[in-house]
């Protein structure tokens, strides 16, 4: 069942069809909530987002893609959460170095790479919210500029400028020498 069919059936009240959509997009929804700062509440955020998405399915524009539309709701829910708990959104991410798909043979090289990456991650964490969100969407979630604009609810030019400023700041923070 493709997205379009699942959406049609969901609109008619077919919860089996909606389960297909939830299953399909659960992982990316959790990842988005986590990376945008939902922290340990990512699961609540995602569940709420899926419930709201179902209720608003009638306003989904059928000619567009479901994923960015859903992630927009996830991003909004995450915003509501971080705003309500009154502290800065943070990346709820751990460096999953133990799960690297491959390991360089040289242990010292591993350590250097790990060090570079944790410094980079720290630098991303330290970015102003808007720049960090753009960087997270573009590079960690690997969304296109257009998708990022939809998810964050801003214009394309705004995505470009926030991304650029974020990159420039990261470059200043971590320096060229750590980046091969």
């Amino acid at each position, binding site marked *: 069942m493709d997205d379009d069919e699942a959406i049609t059936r969901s609109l008619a009240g077919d919860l089996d069809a909606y389960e297909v959509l939830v299953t399909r997009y*659960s992982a990316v929804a959790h990842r988005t909530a986590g990376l945008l700062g939902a922290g340990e509440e990512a699961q609540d955020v995602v569940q709420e987002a899926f419930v709201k998405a*179902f209720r608003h399915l009638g306003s989904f524009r059928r000619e567009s893609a479901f994923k960015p539309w859903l992630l927009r709701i996830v991003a909004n829910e995450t915003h509501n959460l971080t705003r309500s708990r009154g502290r800065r959104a943070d990346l709820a991410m751990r460096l*999953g170095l133990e799960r690297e798909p491959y390991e360089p043979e040289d242990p010292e090289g591993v350590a250097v790479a790990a060090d570079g990456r944790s410094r980079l991650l720290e630098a991303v964490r330290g970015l*102003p*919210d808007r720049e960090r969100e753009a960087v997270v969407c573009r590079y960690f979630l690997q969304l296109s500029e257009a998708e990022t604009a939809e998810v964050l609810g801003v214009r394309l030019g705004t995505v*470009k400028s926030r991304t650029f400023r974020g990159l420039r700041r990261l470059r200043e923070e971590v320096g060229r020498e750590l980046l091969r």
Partner: protein
Amino acid sequence: MSSSDDHPGDDFQAHSGTGRPGDGFGDLEAELRALGDTLHSPAPPPSGVARAVRARLEGPAHTESPARPGRRFGRPGRDGSGSRAGQARPLGSPRRDGRSRRVRLSRRKVAAALAVFLAVLIGATPQGRAAVASVLRFAGVEIGVGAPGPLPAGVPSPLPGERRVTLDEARRAVAFPIVVPFALGDPADVRVADGGRVVSLFWPGARLDEFDGTLGVVFRKDLGEPWPEEIPRLRAWWVQQPHRLSYVPRHGGAPREERVAAPTLIWQRGAVGLRLEGPSRDQALRIAASAR
């Protein structure tokens, strides 16, 4: 917090003016992507999430306020204080109440004659729906245009007595000729509801409900502006926005089985009322034109 946010004219444009967007950041971008690949966020199994979401959707009526995920989801009339009015409204006129077949047939003739060209505009203000500016009745569908209140939030339920059948079984089960639009081909799924009062055909991305369009109101739609668009060539009406759809019980009473309906084309072919939901306007017009 940058105040130049919505004015991307500063450094970015100066920068991309070199003709090399992302100039000098290629290595950093690659490193960020690689870093992203190593980031793991804890996530429960997707099937568990699906079950949890389903349980919430199936649960008792939600008491929290309707979702407002973003500006883009704004809907007409959802802020009004009359938001409850939509739930238990009496419908303007209760319908058939077990009259004899002969009476129904004569009513049918009268109604058919009217329905051919008629879209009746009634300045109706049924009790409890004073906000409704006007009502359009056409092909067994009643459309209230006014302040519709919030779109239904609960889980839509199927039509009464709905069961899955084959197309042939459906043809035997209903009293009117079932129309299968040539442009869509054989339906993927066929359902008959309420003792043959409604037959629903499904294709990926499309739902077509067919019913006797002369005997009274079968479906009720509530929407705000803009008005449905009349398509004179097909004697059809196009409802362009998502809207509240409810089923009007056979023997009258308040509409039930409310759900959110996607944009819909409504037309009539002979005595059969049709509502096609899902396709875009142009697709819907093509499909309707092929339903001969």
